[in-house]
């Protein structure tokens, strides 16, 4: 039972950072940026490259996070601002295109091989029968701290108030003297950083290959929609629900049903949970778990 919850919690932390980033950007510029999942991959790959170039782990991760934030702003200025002038659905398609281009660039630069960060080997930990690794605990802690900082920023600072104002009513916010473009780009920068941290925490606990972004797309979107797109912090709840559902699928022993002692669904069936929840929510509760101003996704 404890193993179940720790697996679900770790998975939720994987998804939450990127889902919150997605939702936060959506709240300001009203389109879900598909390329965000690829920013996570950029972050992971950059950190691995920087580390193999001789940087320390923390320096490599920090530099990579800042670089991805800057990259996100660059893409926003160069591509999405222009596309958004046409229509938000065009921007969505543009972000899909960017996502594919990034994926092709990864294939060119890194090839299909999986990469890992160079980490010291640490002995496994057993807590109340739960198998954990030290890196899992570190990454979980990091995710929680980053999410808490983002929540503080959103709820307790002037910038956060401006962000919420722009999200609620951009023209009105602009009329009161808030520079909406600046606020948007700051949020885009933060979203890039959060995606990069999400990618790096995944790299700390496993290997990174060019498929990582594509594999994240569905559960991250499902988590963001579940929380109500544009409702940044509730994407965390969305991530927890998706993670619980995925863990039920992979951790439930269906042996008794199959007439065997032990029988599990293959772990590759986990995305089914995201799909099912996504469809159910789009049908019956398109605004997400909580009511937000978004009426349609």
């Amino acid at each position: 039972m404890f193993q179940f919850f720790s697996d679900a919690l770790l998975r939720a932390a994987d998804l939450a950072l990127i889902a919150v980033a997605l939702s936060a950007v959506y709240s300001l510029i009203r389109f879900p940026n598909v390329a965000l999942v690829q920013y996570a991959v950029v972050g992971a790959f950059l950190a691995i490259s920087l580390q193999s170039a001789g940087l320390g782990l923390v320096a490599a991760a920090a530099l990579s996070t800042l670089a991805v934030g800057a990259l996100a702003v660059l893409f926003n200025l160069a591509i999405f601002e222009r596309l958004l002038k046409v229509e938000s659905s065009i921007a969505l398609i543009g972000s899909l295109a960017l996502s594919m281009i990034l994926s092709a660039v990864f294939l060119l630069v890194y090839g299909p091989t999986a990469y890992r960060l160079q980490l010291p080997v640490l002995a496994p930990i057993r807590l109340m029968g739960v198998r954990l690794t030290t890196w899992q605990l570190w990454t979980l802690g990091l995710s929680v701290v980053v999410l808490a900082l983002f929540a503080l920023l959103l709820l307790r600072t002037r910038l956060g108030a401006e962000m919420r104002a722009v999200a609620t009513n951009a023209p009105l916010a602009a009329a009161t003297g808030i520079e909406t473009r600046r606020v948007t780009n700051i949020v885009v920068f933060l979203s890039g950083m959060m995606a990069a941290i999400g990618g790096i925490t995944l790299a700390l606990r496993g290997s990174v290959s060019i498929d990582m972004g594509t594999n994240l797309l569905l559960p991250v979107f499902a988590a963001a929609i579940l929380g109500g797109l544009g409702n940044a912090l509730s994407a965390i709840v969305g991530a927890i629900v998706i993670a619980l559902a995925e863990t039920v699928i992979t951790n439930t022993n269906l042996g008794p049903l199959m007439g065997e002692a032990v029988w599990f669904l293959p772990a590759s069936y986990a995305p089914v949970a995201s799909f099912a929840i996504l469809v159910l929510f789009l049908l019956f509760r398109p605004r997400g778990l909580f009511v937000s101003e978004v009426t349609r996704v």
Partner: protein
Amino acid sequence: MDNKLLSLAGVLALGALFHAVPAVAADEFTLGAIIPLSGASATTGEDQRRGIELAVKDVNAKGGVLGKPLKVIIEDSGGKPQTAIDAAKKLVSVDKVPLVIGEYSSGITIPLGQYLVQEGIPHINPASTSGLVRKIGATSHSMVGLDNVSTEFAARDVLGHGWKNVTILAMNNAFGQGVAEEFRKHFEAKGGKVLSTVMYTLGQPSYRRELQQIEAAKPDAYVFTAYGTEGALIMQEAFELGLQQEKPFYSILITMMNKDTPAEFKKGLIGMDVGYLGAGGESYRKDYEAAYKEGFLSAYGGYAHDAVEFAAAAINKAGSTDHAAVLKAIDELGKQGFDGATGEIKLDADRQRTSQPYLKFKVEGAKLVPYE
């Protein structure tokens, strides 16, 4: 203006024509090979490349093929079926090779072989052991024994260690399914019990979920098979979860993943793989160590080596590159037997290798040591 455009188009068309001409000099004899030089199995792919390189040297020292020096055009499959088939199309239509050798994993060899069979091109499988390889078709041949033979050896070996209850972890492709099914059949026929079988999808960032699933059955030992860097990740995570420290791991075709796995994550690992026999094997080992200053990267270089030697011998026997003549010569050579680095190669009526040496291996430090 129109004339200028027309002549420009003419120049472009001419250029395209010249490009279509194979870039290989006419005084070379070319064969094609498709192997995983990148991707999870890149280490084995490099071993296969070395085997091919040594075979080319050897064939050329003996006078080449049809009086010309042999050249093998090597294409990278990237460990992906579609890339392998694209490479085969290029080899067949641009380089016009009379025979293609490839690939490594059954999940890729089978579609690749099917494409070549469809085109009527002779195909030699240098490594894949899935039982489904037998059904590829009339122009496809194997230099390696298939998994009905290998899993029986593994089942006997695992029982010999006194492990009666095991769980199987295998990749979800033609090879992994074949291994899981055949191993279970042989293991249970010999009195063992497979408690559960977990099939994993290739290319995942982590295999913790699967490892926790195999642990739930509480077996005496874990039997698994994995490619290159994925095997390394599975072993590392099994170590990090503490699974390795509690129960033994047994690797089917252990050389596929041994080289990529750091020593600290495979203490006490044992397994089996295809082996080498006879005088041919000894001389291949010597040539290999002289050329590359290290031991074999995997067990599969020798089979790629033999595929080239066998193909060269068959084409020399046929006396031409005509597909029917080459296929007939392969059949005859397969009946009569051919001595390669991997022992005597004989082919059965389905064009598959009839017998096949296997070895038991154990890990010592980073190295793999055969034992009895």
